[in-house]
């Protein structure tokens, strides 16, 4: 499939650019208002397979085109752009709103909160459109929530593929390495080498 940038794909492998999907924590991906529980996991696949709609896709409930997709990552990532492949016949979403590093957003939260960025989507059946992000705001993303409030007029919304392009930093957010809980803190337990070396300071 043709890429947007003007070079032939033999030079570099476009798929590596979109390889953020490897850093998605698939087991913790969830969606609200999906018709089949767990079907959201099928939209995250390799770039080459983005048009392969033989498998499952994400579909919303009857009569309600809103969708909310929660995507956690295994490490902090920087997201450069997002690509969405929707369904045919008006089931593609028209708008996308993103929230970063927020846990447990539901529809009332999504509707009331200010999104970090919003996009108007076009019908992207071939998967060639990518939507750029304001890169400075997407620098250390531990999880991202995508809210699709509306579609092109069908009863339900369908999404076949969500692609994220960017860099993975291998850093993890708020991982606490070691915690020592003490009932009564005793500074003598935590003598550093400098202190024990021969300082005059001495705490009882």
């Amino acid at each position, binding site marked *: 499939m043709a890429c947007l940038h003007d070079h032939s794909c033999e030079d570099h492998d476009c798929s590596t650019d979109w390889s953020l999907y490897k850093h998605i924590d698939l087991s913790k991906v969830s969606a*609200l*208002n999906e018709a*089949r*529980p767990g079907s959201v996991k099928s939209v995250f696949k390799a770039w080459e397979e983005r048009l392969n709609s033989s498998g499952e896709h994400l579909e919303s*409930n009857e009569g*309600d085109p*809103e969708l909310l997709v929660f995507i956690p990552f295994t490490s902090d990532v920087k997201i450069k752009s997002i690509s969405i492949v929707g369904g045919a016949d008006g089931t593609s979403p028209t708008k996308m709103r993103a929230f970063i590093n927020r*846990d*447990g957003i*539901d*529809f*009332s939260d999504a509707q009331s909160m200010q999104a970090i960025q919003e996009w108007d989507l076009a019908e992207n059946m071939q998967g060639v459109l990518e939507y750029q992000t304001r890169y400075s705001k997407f620098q250390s993303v531990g999880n991202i929530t995508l809210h699709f409030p509306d579609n092109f007029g069908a009863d339900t919304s369908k999404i076949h593929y969500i692609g994220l392009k960017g860099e993975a930093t291998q850093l993890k957010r708020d991982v606490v390495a070691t915690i020592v809980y003490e009932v009564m803190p005793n500074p003598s337990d935590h003598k550093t080498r400098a202190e024990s070396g021969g300082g005059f300071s001495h705490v009882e």
Partner: protein
Amino acid sequence: MVLEATMICIDNSEWMRNGDYSPSRFQAQADAVNLICGAKTQSNPENTVGVLTMAGKGVRVLVTPTSDLGKILACMHGLEIGGDMNLAAGIQVAQLALKHRQNKKQQQRIIVFAGSPVKHEKKVLEMIGRKLKKNSVALDIVNFGEEDEGKTEKLEALLAAVNNNDTSHIVHVPAGTNALSDVLISTPIFTGNGEGGSGFAAAAAAAAAGGVSGFEFGVDPNLDPELALALRVSMEEERARQEAAAKKAAEEASKQEKGGEQQASSQDATMTERASASASEAETKTNDMMDDENALLQQALAMSMDDPAINQEAKDTDMSEAASDDPELALALQLSVADSSKDSSSQSDMSKLLADQSFVSSILASLPGVDPNDPSVKDLLASMQNQSEQKNDDKKPPSEEEKK
């Protein structure tokens, strides 16, 4: 073991004063709530449960979702009954309380006790149901109390709107002798979507089934080993005491054997006593000789002899007719009993049977080609009787010697 935050909506409206569920609808509801809280917290220690009331002055949250069972049980005290239930507002407040749960990883569930009539329209309920489904909140409905026309239909419509992949359930509990909590224990509300039941639910079901549960003496040895042991020991003692009493009765009856033997009535009387003594002895013998093949025969004999003891005249003819239908079988039974048992009493039983004039004559009457009025038959009968008396005399000295 699914991680869940649950909000329980209690109906404390005026309709709950009714006593068609014992002791009152409200009490039955409170018991059910206690059981549910226990089951949820047991199935997963991180589960939280909250409670709110739907009637009264308005929807009021008594306790926000917490895993502290004591807090939940304490808030159930001192609840006042009154007002009218507001189902829609109750569910919406429950949804809000769940939204602000502390652990966002918990699944959301609402359990509603719908006891009073539902005054909302079906459309309103369906809209609420769709909103719950959209936010992936499961809903369990307990339909009890008032049987309003349309109430069941509305609640079923609400369930259909909420239900996503069978995570939501509805239970209809009609009024009756069964307690509300007992009925709920076996439902998916307790057992949690067919996970196989938590241990709590299974144990509670066993306790609710009571003594019918198949445990010996109706007491679970796991729950109360000392009580089960005490019951078993006393059962053994009672059995031993009964055996001793039966042996004593046998001794006394065999002593009476010597006395009343001449008349048919006294024979019947002794046969009665013999029958009862032998019946009890047969029982003890059957208890002792369970492995013996003749145990069943002895039981049959005892049973057949029990009947004359109870109702002499009618049952005598019954038994004799039955035996006369198949006299060979009766005789065979008696002979086999006589062979196997060493006790003199049953042998004398057999001779007693033969000595019973009416019995023998009826047997002979049933035999083809035998006329009881035939003098030769009568002679035979008389000789048989003499023989049986001699037999008894013979047996008595040896029995006396045995007893000495």
